[in-house]
């Protein structure tokens, strides 16, 4: 079973090639101008050359589905769809936030709180714990920072565990978090971003439980979280 995983939801371009639960090649590079479109295809090409594998042998294309940069997400999606069009393989869509949470070591028996800046004092978030893999407790959320902190405190008391924060939001919100939760821990900076290798690992974990989560080209979806103003099924006429 071979998986090509890619994530373009953040300022990183992250790629990984996995074979039978082993990561055989990966790229994780920070882009200066969020120009994922420019580097994605050449980097995929390089990944295959480096690992001496063929694109044709890929069984599953996996993409990080967000939440994250709107344009970034679409870069990965359109690339995956185009590859799938010729390869006729399966597609797996895994939230990038799961991959961020998976950066946190299993030994740390803590609640993992992902946080990303959604602007105007709102955040994207999700809460997890590690338990032979990854268990999502809450999410995926788009809410006011203060409400998210209330929710975290609630879950913290229920689970009776310490909380470790990760995600790019750690940078901007660190002080505000410590004001509300003085005993909060923060992950190292390298754990704030989604690694494609984690996406691949999460695919292997999910495959053991349920093979039906794999998707086809026409069904694959991104994780868009809309603000309350736009969160309506019927288009709102301006």
């Amino acid at each position, binding site marked *: 079973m071979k998986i090509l995983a890619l994530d373009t939801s953040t300022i990183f371009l992250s790629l990984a090639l996995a074979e039978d639960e082993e990561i055989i090649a990966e790229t994780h590079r920070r882009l200066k101008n969020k120009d994922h479109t420019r580097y994605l295809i050449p980097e995929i090409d390089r990944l295959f050359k480096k690992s001496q594998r063929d694109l044709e042998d890929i069984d599953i294309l996996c993409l990080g589905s967000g939440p994250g940069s709107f344009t970034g997400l679409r870069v990965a999606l359109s690339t995956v769809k185009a590859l799938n069009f010729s390869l006729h393989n399966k597609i797996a869509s895994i939230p990038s936030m799961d991959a961020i949470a998976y950066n946190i070591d299993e030994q740390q028996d803590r609640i993992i709180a992902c946080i990303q800046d959604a*602007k*105007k004092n709102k955040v994207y978030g999700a809460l997890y714990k590690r338990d032979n893999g990854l268990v999502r407790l809450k999410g995926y959320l788009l809410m006011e920072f203060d409400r998210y902190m209330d929710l975290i405190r609630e879950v913290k008391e229920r689970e009776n565990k310490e909380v470790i924060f990760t995600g790019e939001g750690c940078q901007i919100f660190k002080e505000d978090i410590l004001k509300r939760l003085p005993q909060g821990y923060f992950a190292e900076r390298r754990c704030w971003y989604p690694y494609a290798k984690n996406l691949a690992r999460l695919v292997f974990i999910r495959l053991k439980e349920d093979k039906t989560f794999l998707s086809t080209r026409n069904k694959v979806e991104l994780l868009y979280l*809309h603000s309350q103003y736009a969160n309506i099924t019927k288009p709102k006429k301006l």
Partner: protein
Amino acid sequence: MKTITSLSINQTKEIARRLSSGLKEKDVLGLVGDLGSGKTTFIKGLASGLGIKEERVISPSFVLIREYKGRIPLYHFDLYRLNYIEEFELLDYKRYFYGDGITCIEWAEKIEDFLPDSCLRIKFEIIDKDKRDITFYSKDNYLKRIIKGLR
């Protein structure tokens, strides 16, 4: 809040040019006013202050956004033809508002809820054929100072 009366197209441009010298990246300008009240003229002045040829500035009524390369990038939104809020979200507006340039939005009242709190609001009122009242307002301390110095 400050209101400046402009008596001509050139004067509107000059006011905008003066404003441009104080602006920095991530500043968002919300322009409100009827058709022909001077919004695009104002942006032409702003562009020229940033070292962009004003002829390049035309209202992106159909494409919704235009980008101009100046001393600082200038992003020009025209939401006149915007019908649904979903269309606006599809523009990836955060990339512009919180990016590396100055954003100007014509018909900004249509996306009131998405404007950053620090937005500089500019209202255009038609007084008579050439005369326009231009009112500036912002909650942001930095922009407040700039408005104060504007004439």
